[in-house]
């Protein structure tokens, strides 16, 4: 039986077409900013000298009076965002993930999270798919250092469309949010009708042999892996866990009960990311099942093309297929 996406997920019809639309998740961020800017006059955008590559520029063109160029000063940008939030604004902070929450984590911790300030942080250029810029610019630790913070919501959307929706959702909830997105173009496989809710995972395919729980553009690789495996008669449940915090524990538990074998997938270090969060959920709430981590193997990245890097460090569809085989083997003992 060949894999089919669930109707409830409302994905694009031509999921595996060669000419599926490709768009970077950062483009979805840019669209989302312009839309929430139109909806809510309190939305302001702060940018750290990266308005073109974070797409914050799209907002600036529409609402120049609500765009704040902060220069290369991510620490002050985060503290200022807290001040703006305490005065009733909804600041979106746009820069690369290595700088925010990387460089300014102390400001994020105290001024934003501890004060529960209504600030929306945006980590652009997250993951190894940043490519040629190399290890310094590839944020592989940002999920770990944001999800550890009380009051923080952490979202890593799977495609441009989901990113757009996540921007809306972030603007609507009260409190700090970290949105993570990527530089390079990836398939747009969700549609405006695909459900999105903060804290609610989306089951994309059904299957009872193993579950893949993923966040970010690697979700599409998980679908590809599930298709390849279905050709061999292996049924995989693919779950888009866009919200890493608060984690949808019920969907994870159900997947573990139904499949007995879990693979987590993310463009992030294997320590402290989504995989860690899923393991925490399963070991504390049960059931404890074999889990394989598709993630960066405790290593820094390097320059290269996104696909080369994802293949080399084991974060592509092939790595997922292998991980599913491994986890099923472990399940069978």
């Amino acid at each position, binding site marked *: 039986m060949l894999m089919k996406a669930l109707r409830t997920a409302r994905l694009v019809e031509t999921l595996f077409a060669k000419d599926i639309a490709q768009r970077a998740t950062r483009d979805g961020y840019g669209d989302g900013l312009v839309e929430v800017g139109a909806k809510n006059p309190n939305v*302001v955008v702060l940018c750290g000298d990266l308005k073109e590559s974070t797409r914050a520029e799209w907002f600036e063109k529409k609402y120049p*009076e*609500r765009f*704040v160029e*902060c*220069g290369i*000063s991510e*620490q*002050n*940008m*985060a*503290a*200022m*965002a*807290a*001040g*703006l*939030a*305490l*005065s*009733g*604004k909804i*600041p979106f902070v746009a820069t690369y993930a290595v700088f925010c929450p990387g460089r300014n984590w*102390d*400001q994020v911790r*105290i*001024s934003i999270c*501890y*004060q*529960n300030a209504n600030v929306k942080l945006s980590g652009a250029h997250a993951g190894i798919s940043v490519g040629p810029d190399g290890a310094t610019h590839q944020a592989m630790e940002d999920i770990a250092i944001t999800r550890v913070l*009380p*009051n923080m919501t952490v979202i890593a959307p799977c495609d441009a469309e989901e990113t757009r929706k996540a921007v809306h959702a972030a603007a609507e909830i009260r409190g700090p949010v970290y949105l993570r997105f990527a530089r390079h173009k990836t398939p747009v496989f969700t549609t405006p009708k695909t459900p999105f809710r903060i804290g609610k995972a989306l089951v994309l395919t059904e299957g009872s042999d193993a579950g893949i729980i993923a966040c970010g553009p690697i979700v599409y690789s998980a679908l590809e892996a599930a298709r390849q495996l279905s050709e061999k008669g292996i049924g995989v449940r693919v779950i888009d866990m866009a919200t890493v915090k608060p984690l949808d524990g019920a969907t994870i538990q159900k997947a573990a009960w139904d499949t007995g074998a879990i693979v987590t997938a993310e463009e992030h270090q294997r320590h402290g990311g989504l995989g860690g969060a899923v393991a925490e959920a399963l070991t504390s709430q049960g059931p404890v099942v074999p889990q394989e981590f598709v993630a960066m193997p405790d290593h820094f990245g390097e320059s290269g093309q996104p696909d080369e890097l994802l293949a080399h460090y084991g974060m592509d569809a092939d790595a997922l297929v292998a991980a599913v085989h491994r986890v099923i083997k472990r399940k069978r003992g």
Partner: protein
Amino acid sequence: MKPPHTLKELERIAAQIREDIIRMLVEAGSGHSAGPLDLADVFTALYFGGVLRHNPKKPDWPERDRLIMSNGHVAPVVYATLARAGYFPLKELRTLRKFGTRLQGHVDRSTPGPRAKWSKHLPGIENTAASLAQGIGIAVGTALAGVMDKKKWQVHCITSDGEHDEGSFWEAILFAGNRRLWNLTVIVDRNNIQIDGMTEDIAPLEPLRAKYEAFKWHVIDVDGHNIEQVIDACNEAKAIYEKPVAIIAHTIAGKGVSFMEYDYQWHGKPPDPEQAKQALRDLRSLRGQIVGEHE
């Protein structure tokens, strides 16, 4: 709010605040002495000298002037001033740094989590300040919000000289100068000490005035223990529309307590009960110059 107090009364209030600080610190058994003592005159000027438009009965009044703290470790002077101004009962000062208190070790405007023992933040506190040089950024963001919304309220930010060591402090100063945030006044507690020694030995700040001016700020130097001068400088700052203003308040660390004055070792520790007695005696008698009847 009109200044209802004469200079004599203001000086008396400042002395009272210093006594409160000593009592709070000795009761808490930990905390900072030098900074809170040397800022007592500045805080008296702000809250009792007619500088801040504020209302202790309506701490969240939208048109209030904002006092943003950047050196949150001087919490005792903030708490004592707010209590004396009527924001909360004086007796609550005794709870400083104790489990379940609203008077956290560093000024605090967090939203308590479900497990916290205290139920709401202390009235009159605008922000959380602890890790240095964050409050200045919050103040700049607050001032920016005021300018964006064409508000009339002013933002005052209290900073220590030591925290000028932080690189991010100057990020904020650069931004505010560039954006000409006219509604922002920074008051620098220039007491020349930090935890490990004298500021000019550790990371020299001078010429501090020239640094601010180079960042497009207007600078006013005042004697931080001359309440009248502090009030005048704050009013001058309000009248300057083209730039943010830095008031460098030259203070004596530990002001008012003979054995604490000028000594950096009192930056981060409280007096013990014996020392507290001596300190209170100093404060009541202007360092032994006047012997009161209660002695």
